């Protein structure tokens, strides 16, 4: 009890000292507090991440409209027909819905207080801004609706989300439960739907990303509470003089750190609140949030509030182990005992031992123990902070010779290699983690990225027009669009052996001869020809089904999905074979290729005769409605915004048309999200480390202000002092990055082996990560030069 009281008294005295001492004391406390505050703000931001995810998820769920599996519903007072009209503008996705309420009780989407009438739309604030700005001119053409209101926050998942609800008419005939559906409520849960099991390797990635990003923050906070350490040691010596014993002195020192960290907590909260507001006005990698999302989880926030001050006390007590504080105002800095290596090695080895049992588990068998993963990665990275002071000490002890600048730097490092190592610890840990993560990402990327098979030389965009093909002139309208070189229009469907619930079916592709040549090598072709494809990758049994003279059915019916059941007779003569080629679709097609004339002819009296006179590429509405129409476009890359012009044409042809830009590969959404999260987090951490490094550098320079002034007084060139500062940073950072590379490569290799992926060193990543780390340090050094020049001014001697 007495000990606790003594501790409390000493710590309280330390807290008072932290803010005492006039301007000097306040400056020191403020520097510590700013450093700790930056770390706390980032920690609070991290504690808010689960809430951000859950709120975004809840908002997304609340506005979910059709689920592709809702039962067919009749029109009623409470039904609403909703159509998916998503689009893309530049690189940004625009969420769009067309709404047609069918009765007075039709459900309103979240964030919308009344249905927009046909020709009107309600938009998100970000979309409103875009549409009213000159940047949104092309999008304005695509959304020719009058803006009748805005969507409130509860209807959006982010402050910068582009979204609209437009009023529409006559949507009901187009209900297909795919893009158009009839619903009675938004956010309906699908019975029996369970959340998808997360891929274990992705969980591994998330765990490592969090550990790697938070570790440098912890390292940084530990460094920040030791700002002003040298001056504090001198002050503590004075306390020894008036009778405090060495333990009391340490506790008082810990109290000073506690004071700084408590103020840091306050500042951190303020920074967080400022950042929270600012977060609403930024969008990073297509993701934005509302400030209200950034609510830290209470338990985690309390943990931060307790852990940070506690850590500051422990770090100070730990740091003062090797410092001998004596009375008479002198801190004897006799050469400290050499650092021991053995326990420092134990940390990374312990980390490896924790990860080793999970080696080889991979995606299939991976059930990674999150505590072992986090603990293992943590120990390996903490190992960097433990090994670096030893390495810096061991290396700089062997350095000598050189210019005055070099000598000043080396001697400084020899005297206090710990300070230098502490400064670069954060960067080293961040780089080690980043290298490991980059290796892991690069190693498993193949598992989460698949080739789309699209041949980008033949087409760069595809427009899905759905049934009816957007009218007979759709192809012409695309051909007339600015930036379009060629247009290939194909209609797809299937032929079956029965009208209802068929047993056999074969796919058909309808197009003019030029379009069909994109899919097969045709011996000769004219309108009216039919070809049976050979050499397809998958034989769908067309040859068994397609017998001359046999009647088949286009768009058959199924129990719960009525079709148009259009009879079509296989021609008795002229059915020829054609070799399928790797075409536009990215695979060798199968089934039948039909020219429009052949389709009409086979359908015989089932279709109106007027259709026969339609252009070859067009089909009459009855046949067209049984097929879905795709348009493939080759663009003129020299025309800026060609894709936007195409999307605008598509929207004019059919507001429900789906215009897609082709890519050669497709990445798993979750994989992409984690990777983007890493980039955002890494940017925040690097900015924090850079800022902290600068604060720490300035603090060190400030402590040496008088010495710098006196060196200048007796004629030292400023360049010499500047270079010495650069060497003082460059030597430890070079060693830190070297160690970080070794640890990063080791950790990366282990993580890859855990994921059962081939271990491969991604040297460009290693070089870029170390380069970024070095760049941060170089930037900080350059930024510290102007204050250094000020500190070197001879009037720094005035108080002498």
């Amino acid at each position, binding site marked *: 009890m007495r000990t606790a009281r003594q501790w409390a008294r000493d710590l309280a005295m330390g807290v008072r000292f932290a803010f005492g001492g006039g301007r000097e004391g306040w400056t020191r406390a403020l520097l510590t507090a700013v450093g700790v505050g930056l770390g706390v703000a980032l920690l609070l931001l991290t504690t808010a991440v689960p809430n951000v995810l859950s709120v975004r998820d809840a908002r997304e769920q609340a506005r979910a409209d059709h689920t592709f599996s809702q039962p067919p519903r009749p029109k009623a007072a409470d039904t609403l027909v909703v159509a998916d009209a998503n689009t893309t503008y530049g690189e940004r996705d625009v969420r769009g819905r067309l709404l047609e309420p069918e009765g007075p009780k039709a459900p309103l989407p979240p964030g919308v207080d009344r249905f927009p009438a046909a020709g009107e739309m309600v938009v998100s604030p970000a979309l409103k801004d875009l549409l009213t700005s000159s940047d949104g001119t092309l999008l304005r053409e695509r959304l020719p609706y009058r803006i009748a209101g805005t969507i409130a926050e509860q209807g959006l998942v982010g402050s910068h989300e582009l979204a609209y609800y437009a009023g529409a008419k006559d949507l009901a005939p187009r209900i297909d439960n795919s893009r158009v559906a009839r619903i009675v409520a938004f956010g309906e849960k699908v019975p029996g739907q369970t959340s998808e099991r997360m891929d274990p390797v992705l969980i591994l990635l998330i765990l490592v990303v969090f550990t790697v990003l938070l570790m440098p923050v912890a390292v940084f906070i530990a460094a920040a509470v030791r700002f002003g350490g040298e001056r504090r040691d001198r002050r503590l010596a004075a306390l020894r003089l008036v009778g405090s014993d060495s333990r009391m002195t340490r506790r008082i020192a810990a109290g000073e750190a506690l004071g700084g960290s408590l103020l840091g907590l306050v500042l951190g909260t303020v920074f967080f609140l400022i950042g929270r507001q600012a977060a609403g006005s930024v969008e990073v990698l297509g993701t934005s949030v509302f400030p209200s999302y950034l609510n830290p989880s209470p338990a985690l926030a309390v943990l931060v509030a307790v852990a940070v001050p506690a850590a500051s006390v422990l770090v100070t007590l730990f740091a003062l182990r090797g410092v001998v504080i004596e009375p008479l105002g002198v801190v004897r800095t006799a050469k400290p005992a050499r650092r021991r290596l053995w326990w420092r090695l134990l940390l990374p080895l312990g980390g490896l031992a924790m990860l080793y049992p999970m080696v080889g588990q991979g995606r299939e068998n991976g059930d990674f123990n999150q505590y072992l993963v986090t603990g293992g990665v943590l120990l390996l990275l903490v190992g960097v902070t433990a090994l670096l002071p030893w390495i810096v000490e061991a290396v700089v002890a062997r350095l000598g010779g050189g210019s005055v600048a070099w*000598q000043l730097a080396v001697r400084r490092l020899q005297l206090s290699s710990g300070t230098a190592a502490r400064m670069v610890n954060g960067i080293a840990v961040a780089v080690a983690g980043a290298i490991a993560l980059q290796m892991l990402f690069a190693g498993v990327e193949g598992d989460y990225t698949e080739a789309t098979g699209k041949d980008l030389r033949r087409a760069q965009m595809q427009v899905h027009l759905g049934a009816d093909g957007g009218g007979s002139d759709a192809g012409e309208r695309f051909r007339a669009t600015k930036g379009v070189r060629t247009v290939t229009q194909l209609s797809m469907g299937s032929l079956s052996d029965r009208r209802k619930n068929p047993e056999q079916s074969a796919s058909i592709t309808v197009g003019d001869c030029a379009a069909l040549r994109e899919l097969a090598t045709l011996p000769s072709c004219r309108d009216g020809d039919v070809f049976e494809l050979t050499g397809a990758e998958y034989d769908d049994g067309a040859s068994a089904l397609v017998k001359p003279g046999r009647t088949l059915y286009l768009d058959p019916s199924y129990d719960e999905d009525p079709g148009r059941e259009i009879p079509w007779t296989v021609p008795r003569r002229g059915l020829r074979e054609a070799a399928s080629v790797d075409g536009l679709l990215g695979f060798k097609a199968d089934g039948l290729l039909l020219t429009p004339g052949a389709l009409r002819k086979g359908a015989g009296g089932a279709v109106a005769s007027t259709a026969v006179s339609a252009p070859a590429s067009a089909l009459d509405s009855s046949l067209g409605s049984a097929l879905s129409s795709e348009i493939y476009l080759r663009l003129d890359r020299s025309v800026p915004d060609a894709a936007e012009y195409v999307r605008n044409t598509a929207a004019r042809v059919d507001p429900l048309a789906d215009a897609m830009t082709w890519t050669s590969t497709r990445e798993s959404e979750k994989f992409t999200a984690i990777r983007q999260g890493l980039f955002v987090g890494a940017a925040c951490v690097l900015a924090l480390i850079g800022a902290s490094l600068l604060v720490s550098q300035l603090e060190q320079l400030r402590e040496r202000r008088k*010495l710098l002034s006196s060196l200048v*007084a*007796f004629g030292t060139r400023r360049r010499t002092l500047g270079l010495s500062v650069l060497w003082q940073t460059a030597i430890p950072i070079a060693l830190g990055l070297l160690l970080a590379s070794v640890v990063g490569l080791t950790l990366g290799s282990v993580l890859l082996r855990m994921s059962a992926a081939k271990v491969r060193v991604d040297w460009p990543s290693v070089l870029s990560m170390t380069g970024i780390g070095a760049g941060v340090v170089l930037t900080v050094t350059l930024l510290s030069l102007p204050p250094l020049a000020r500190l070197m001014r001879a*009037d720094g*001697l005035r108080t*002498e």
Partner: protein
Amino acid sequence: MTAPAGSLLAAEGLRKAYGPTVALDGAEFSIHPGEVVAVMGPSGSGKSTLLHCLAGIVTPDAGSILYDGRDLATMNDAQRSALRRSEFGFVFQFGQLVPELTCVENVALPLRLNGTSRKRAEQTALDWMRRLEVDDLAKKRPGEVSGGQGQRVAVARALVTSPRVVFADEPTGALDSLNGERVMELLTEAARSASTAVVLVTHEARVAAYSDREIVVRDGKSRDMERVV
């Protein structure tokens, strides 16, 4: 301005203000080669500012300073730095030794800044340390030596380039009387033997007693005093 006959360093009409605080207000000064001049005065009287102006560390707002016939006002920062490196030496109240360098490296530093090789610089530094009776501290760092020892190392550093003028700002201010006297004895003996002029800023009469002449600074103005023995 015309410098007094035979003077090495002379100043006239010096004025320097830091914001509203006037530190020097028409101060004058002169010193001859090998002469030891004490600048005395109470705290805040402007004596350190006078020293900083004379040494070219601080540029006065008005007035002129001639060193060996050259006007300091016409020199740029690099030229003044070069002058301080080669012709001037400095001793401050707390020594201001570079803590990470050993004592011999500290003493050798001004020579190294002038381009002397490390070996030769340290050899010369050791010679001076021997004269100031601190050669046994050569390999120690400033943090490992006493205040008096550190100040003698600082005096060795000030004299190592064989400067023509040493500026000493309260060189004994942080020392006990015994150590202070020893430092002053060594400083003035070494300076006189090398014909080095010493500008000695102090507020202690017993330190000023080591000088040949005293100048009193009060309210930014200087007054040459008769030598009091």
